[in-house]
């Protein structure tokens, strides 16, 4: 193999490894496929006044947050939650009715006095950790954070060794 061909081969390998190692936001555990098609219904849009299923039957403390802050915080929480009917789209970004319903539920839970962490925990309780776009850095979720840097380092080491071998062969 010529020196140029070997260098090209090394660069191709490095490119492949970088492509694989590149982190993908929200690419956590296998996402379930959407179950049904939305849009073929004409029910009223989710209302913020709807009672929360989480707090049904229980008294809840009202939030001291002003409405503008609740809207802002809800939008931020929505960016960290996955729309259950979409592929890697957050609740805030998705126009689907279930995502709009979840956004309304987040606002309602905040109004009832839940903290952002408690709101996230509420959705994790119902859907599992899968609902978080960024999986928690423990258990299987740790793989998402540890494997890409390891592949990157391994690729770098491989590239270094190949280049060194190519140089000494020349």
């Amino acid at each position, binding site marked *: 193999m010529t020196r140029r061909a070997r260098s090209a081969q090394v660069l191709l*390998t490095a490119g*492949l*490894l970088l492509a*694989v190692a590149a982190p993908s936001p929200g690419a956590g*555990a*296998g*996402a*379930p*496929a*959407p*179950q*049904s*098609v*939305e849009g*073929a*219904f*004409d*029910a*009223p849009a*989710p*209302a*913020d006044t*709807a*009672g*929360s*299923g*989480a707090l*049904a*039957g229980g008294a809840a403390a009202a939030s001291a947050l002003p409405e503008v802050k609740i809207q802002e915080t809800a939008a931020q929480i929505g960016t960290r939650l996955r729309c*259950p*009917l979409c592929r890697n789209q957050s609740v805030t970004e998705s126009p689907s*009715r*279930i995502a709009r*319903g*979840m956004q*309304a*539920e987040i606002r*309602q839970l905040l109004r009832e006095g839940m903290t952002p962490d408690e709101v996230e925990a509420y*959705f*994790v*309780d*119902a*859907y*599992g950790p899968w*609902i978080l776009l960024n999986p928690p850095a423990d258990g299987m979720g740790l793989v998402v954070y540890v494997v890409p840097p390891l*592949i990157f380092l*391994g*690729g770098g080491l*491989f590239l270094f*060794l*190949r280049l060194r071998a190519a140089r000494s062969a020349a």
Partner: protein
Amino acid sequence: MVWLGPVAVLVSLLLLLRWGLTRDVQTLPSALVGKPAPQFNLATLYVPADSLALADLEGRVTLVNFWASWCIPCVHEHPVLTHVTETWGQDSVALVGILFQDSPENGKRFMEQYGGDWPLLTDNGSTTAISYGMYGVPETFFIGADGVVARRHAGAVTWDLVESTVDSLLRARRDLGSQ
């Protein structure tokens, strides 16, 4: 030989991706299984002033079925649900349908067309659906007499699945009663 390492890594990752992308949503366990079922108190489809709460069904094996008139698998599973009410009395096995993202008019038309007589509820804002961690209709939650979610099934239920699950929950209910 030096290629073996990267190729092995690539193949492993591709296999992992393939496994992730081909997982069946119906086999994914619900985060609620083994936990107390989320409580609800919802208006009935036919008389919105009336409501039914999960607490009203305490002590019974309860099937909470999320459905919609626009959902084709809901049509397929409808005879199974009808058979549930024909096989067991509501005092031992309660079936409750919760309309998901659909208008009450469409829900009523669906029931007129396909028949069936069990409590039907509406879920304004999908708050109950969200508290159950719903992905899409149909989804059925099997709740034991102790109020704990025993099973979640996404997609149309089959009679074999319903019968075996309900039978085992009824056995557990009898054991609970004899204690």
